[in-house]
């Protein structure tokens, strides 16, 4: 074994001041402060009734100056409560030269035996002293990001985010893979709003925004463009974009439309959900932006007829796909959703019967710029249907293979909206909505009542099948309120298709290395407090790429994402300095750490490895992977870890059990909660806070056993991207223990959650008795775990 780490530099000459807090009896009622005080060997040992009170600030500072202290240990409450307070007492010393011993939450509040708790308080304090000897002065990192952003996806979310960024002075590139921006919103024709009992024209609302995008000096609009590659460099992103060859010189095209007349190619018009035909040279819809024609390279025959009639000479078949590299400070994913593929629910007959359509198709049918100029018709014969049956949850709320487990959130309102429009314009057409639950949360309830008052019929039941009998379609459903199975005859069925992430959402997430949910939506860092952050720092998400939501919510989220980007760029960020750092002299540039880091904090630039402090979570997984010992996590160096382990195990009696519990941030808070709720657990348990189990290496574990630990307890919150490597780590530890003749049951792993502190306390008790029985099964006098000399 490498011995470098096990040799600590001698730090016996540092002057440490130890300040003990009685906490108004909270500590001193259990812990014998006098004995504690007299057992500590330090330059200064003083006790105070309430160390956190303002007057103690002066006291401590005076000691620092008078006694020329180099380091400070405060033995008091949990660092979570007052570490910041005590750090502010440190002046003129660097605040990071302070260490705290948690003798309240993790000692006096959980133990009642005065003798044993005083012993434990002593070892906690000594451990803090051992650790603080190796502390380094640190300064917080201040970071500014390049003032530019890329917004990917030109739907309502992307448009909103881009405009907000641009209005805040941030140079923004809006990237859309289709020839035009506007996304789904521009296709659906009419939209519902929370407070209005009317359907508004989506085009009328969207057009001014689209025009603003085009006019805005800070926005660069790239249509027909996709992100091909992304690379993180420093705090910035290098994106490689590819703009499809559109064969049209956008600056020349006047959108006269002469070309369309002569184009001989007819293809299904995807913008109109394939309900009508278009030419190979086309503009998706009259108001499309950019207001130019485009050529569908897949179907174009390159016959040149359009070229002949174009007076502006705007058509150029020699154009090639263009590669555009851009460098931006932030990325917003706004790649949206698509409709569920109804072929996966064949029983609804979508691919068999012409008159079974989706809500999006119905929107196009009823859109004024659609195939019928807004007239409702049955696709089979162009007649107005007598009855329209809507089937809710087509693919949503469905746990079965290929189904979507979630509620698509908008379909109830979409169905009501379309039903309401039909009832207004075609009073002879009956509309029946077959539903499981009508979900019109908040203000939308008004709209639901409004729809009902127009005579929309509701049948509560989830249809099982759509079939055809004679000329009519038949919907098989149970009216669950009547307890009656029925076949509803109808001449048109509208399936309220689920929303699922667009192909682009999934592809782009792969390119940007952004985490996805089980349902393949972009995963936000935290659904409550970080709803627009992704797990890659600097990449944000908004709109339906993140989950099903309506236009109102998409716009709110887009604005939130934009202001997060702007926070980063305008304010800059102060980051805690406890992050990983590379020592370039030792680094052999193997790049292993880059692959290991799931936070994507490590990158290579100009033949050097860098760690982005903004993205680093200080988990320390990179350290274990580095064969050249070129990485260290500041504030958690090997010396500090060895120091605290040795300190915790000092002066252990023969008949005593000591268990070291390494807990991550979540586990540590859970342990504090045990204290706050005064749930007892054995004194043997000594808690050491680490950023992650990934920081620990076999040498630390073996060191602990060598120094006399009877058991090691590891606790970590499982819902993090590095969890998989923790599992590998545990296997590695167990293997090493086996090699060294240590019973692997002496190492225990437990998943911690802040609210489940009772479970953690119970685990401590359980582990203690496990260790006890292990020790008893050994001959007491011979119990010395065999660890090789290093």
């Amino acid at each position, binding site marked *: 074994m490498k011995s470098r780490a096990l040799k600590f530099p001698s730090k016996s000459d540092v002057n440490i001041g130890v300040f003990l807090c009685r906490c108004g009896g909270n500590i001193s009622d259990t812990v014998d402060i006098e004995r504690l005080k007299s057992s500590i060997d330090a330059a200064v040992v003083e006790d105070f009734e309430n160390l956190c009170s303002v007057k103690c600030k002066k006291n401590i500072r005076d000691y620092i100056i008078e006694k020329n202290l180099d380091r400070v240990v405060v033995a008091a409450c949990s660092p979570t409560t007052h570490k910041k307070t005590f750090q502010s007492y440190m002046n003129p010393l660097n605040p990071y030269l302070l260490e705290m011993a948690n003798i309240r939450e993790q000692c006096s509040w959980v133990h009642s035996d005065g003798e044993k708790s005083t012993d434990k308080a002593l070892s906690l304090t000594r451990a803090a002293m051992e650790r603080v000897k190796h502390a380094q002065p640190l300064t917080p990192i201040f970071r500014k990001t390049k003032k530019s952003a890329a917004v990917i996806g030109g739907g309502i979310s992307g448009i909103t985010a881009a405009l907000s960024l641009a209005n805040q002075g941030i140079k923004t590139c809006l990237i859309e893979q289709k020839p035009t921006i506007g996304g789904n919103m521009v296709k659906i024709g009419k939209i519902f709003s929370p407070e209005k009992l009317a359907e508004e024209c989506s085009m009328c609302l969207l057009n001014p925004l689209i025009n603003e995008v085009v006019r805005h000096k800070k926005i660069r609009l790239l249509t027909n463009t996709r992100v091909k590659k992304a690379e993180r460099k420093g705090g910035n992103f290098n994106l490689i974009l590819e703009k499809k060859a559109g064969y049209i010189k956008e600056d020349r095209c006047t959108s006269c439309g002469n070309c369309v007349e002569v184009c001989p190619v007819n293809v299904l018009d995807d913008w109109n959900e394939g309900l009508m035909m278009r030419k190979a040279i086309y503009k998706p819809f009259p108001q499309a932006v950019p207001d130019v024609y485009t050529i569908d390279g897949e179907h174009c025959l390159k016959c040149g007829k359009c070229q002949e009639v174009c007076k502006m000479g705007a058509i150029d078949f020699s154009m090639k796909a263009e590669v555009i590299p851009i460098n931006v400070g932030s990325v917003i994913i706004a790649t949206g959703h698509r409709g569920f593929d109804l072929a996966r*629910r*064949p*029983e609804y007959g979508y691919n*068999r019967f012409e008159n079974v359509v989706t809500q999006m198709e119905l929107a196009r049918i009823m859109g004024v710029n659609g195939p019928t100029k807004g007239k409702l018709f049955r696709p089979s014969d162009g007649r107005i249907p007598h009855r329209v049956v809507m089937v809710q949850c087509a693919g949503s709320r469905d746990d079965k*293979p290929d189904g979507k487990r979630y509620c698509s959130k908008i379909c109830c309102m979409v169905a009501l909206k379309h039903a309401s429009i039909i009832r207004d314009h075609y009073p002879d057409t009956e509309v029946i909505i077959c539903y499981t639950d009508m979900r019109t949360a908040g203000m939308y309830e008004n709209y639901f009542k409004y729809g009902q008052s127009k005579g929309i019929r509701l049948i509560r039941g989830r249809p099982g099948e759509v079939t*055809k009998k004679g000329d009519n379609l038949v919907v098989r459903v149970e009216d669950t309120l009547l307890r009656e199975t029925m076949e509803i005859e109808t001449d048109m069925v509208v399936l309220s298709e689920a929303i699922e992430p667009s192909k682009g959402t999934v592809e782009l997430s792969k390119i940007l290395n952004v985490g996805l949910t089980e349902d393949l939506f972009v995963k936000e860092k935290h659904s409550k407090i970080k709803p627009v952050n992704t797990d890659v720092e600097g990449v944000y998400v908004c709109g339906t790429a993140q989950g099903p939501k309506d236009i109102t919510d998409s716009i709110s989220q887009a604005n939130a994402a934009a202001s997060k980007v702007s926070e980063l760029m305008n304010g800059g960020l102060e980051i805690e300095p406890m992050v990983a750092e590379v020592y370039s002299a030792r680094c052999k540039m193997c790049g292993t750490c880059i692959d290991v880091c799931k936070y994507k904090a490590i990158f290579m630039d100009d033949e050097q490895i860098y760690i982005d402090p903004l993205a680093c979570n200080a988990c320390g997984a990179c350290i274990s992977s580095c064969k050249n010992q070129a990485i260290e996590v500041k504030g958690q160096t090997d010396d500090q870890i060895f120091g605290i382990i040795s300190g915790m195990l000092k002066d252990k009696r023969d008949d005593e059990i000591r268990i070291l519990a390494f807990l991550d941030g979540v586990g540590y808070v859970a342990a504090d909660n045990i204290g706050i709720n005064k749930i007892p657990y054995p004194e043997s348990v000594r808690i050491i806070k680490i950023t992650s189990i990934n920081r620990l290496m076999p040498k630390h574990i073996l060191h602990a056993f060598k120094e006399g630990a009877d058991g090691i307890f590891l606790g970590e919150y499982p819902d993090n991207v590095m969890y998989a490597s923790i599992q590998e780590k545990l296997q590695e530890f167990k293997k090493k223990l086996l090699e060294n003749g240590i019973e692997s049951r002496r190492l225990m792993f437990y998943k911690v959650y802040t609210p489940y502190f009772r479970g953690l306390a119970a685990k401590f008790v359980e582990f203690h008795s496990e260790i006890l029985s292990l020790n008893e099964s050994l001959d007491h006098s011979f119990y010395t775990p065999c660890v090789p000399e290093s």
Partner: protein
Amino acid sequence: MKQIPCKDILLFKSCLVSVEYPGIESSTRYLFDQLGIEYLVDERQSCCTGLGHYYDLFDQFSTTALAARNLAIARETGHKNMAVMCATCYAILKKACQTLEENKEIRDKINNIFEGSGMGQFSYQRGDFDSRSNIFHVAEILYNQKDKISNLSRIDLSSFKMASHHACHYCKAHYADTLGDVRDPQVIDTIIRSCGAQSLEWYDHQRLTCGAGFRQRFTNKDLSLSVTAEKLLSLKEKDVEVLVHMCPNCQMQFDRYQPTIEKILDTEFDIVHLNISQLVALASGADPYRVVGVQTHTVPVEPFLKKLDIDVDLRQKNLERSLVDEERSLVDEERSLVDDGRD
């Protein structure tokens, strides 16, 4: 998609195949031989309990214990891939295998019974089988050989309208293991098409049960037959001539009851019922009476055979020929004796 084996197969005997449509077994064996699929039939294997199980007569524990014994036979003979001809066997074996894998208490109880009665060789150890990758329906194995099947096809079936009836206990009971889409499996349809025939894309009530409903056939006959009739009517509307099955119980429900339903409804269904193995064997030129076993059908298959230009008097001729063969072999014997004498 799951891996489908072509060797180490235990062809699992089915009670209804054995006594109602033995032609399904002879057709399957014939096809396995033609396709070079290595398999074994073991006389010790018991019935899966399926019918009794779903008559509610058997309890889950007894069914599982018997399954453990049958699995042990497969293990012992080195033929761990169970191929079933009946959908009920499929569902029963999968469920039992899952229980033995996942439920320690039940596994221990069953093993204790075995060990306490000198049958320790039947004990089930965790990991012995995987219900997903060791238990298959014969139709899946044929599906996997679809290309070879089209090469085997010798009879032109292109003018026939066929439809599939995917048995419920194959496609619905363990839906996560069903090949293709649970709601529209297309396993049989694909094989039908490999034989050169047309198979309906979809028909109303495609997913509907045959109507046997285990006890329903006996105790609720009207209910049972009204379901069968509903499906037959839907097939009639689409002019289906052959309904292709994968389960002898479904086949029995349709084939045996079709004349009864015709009487009740006063209508005629010109629908012949064949198991998928029977159809493929027929398409590849197998003898209808010596391999396909059409002589046990209630709805006569002969009109369909006639359309295929297959000699329907074959059975009689077979019988005559076997008499002739017998005579000939006697003659041959005499001749060889004479030949021997010459040397």
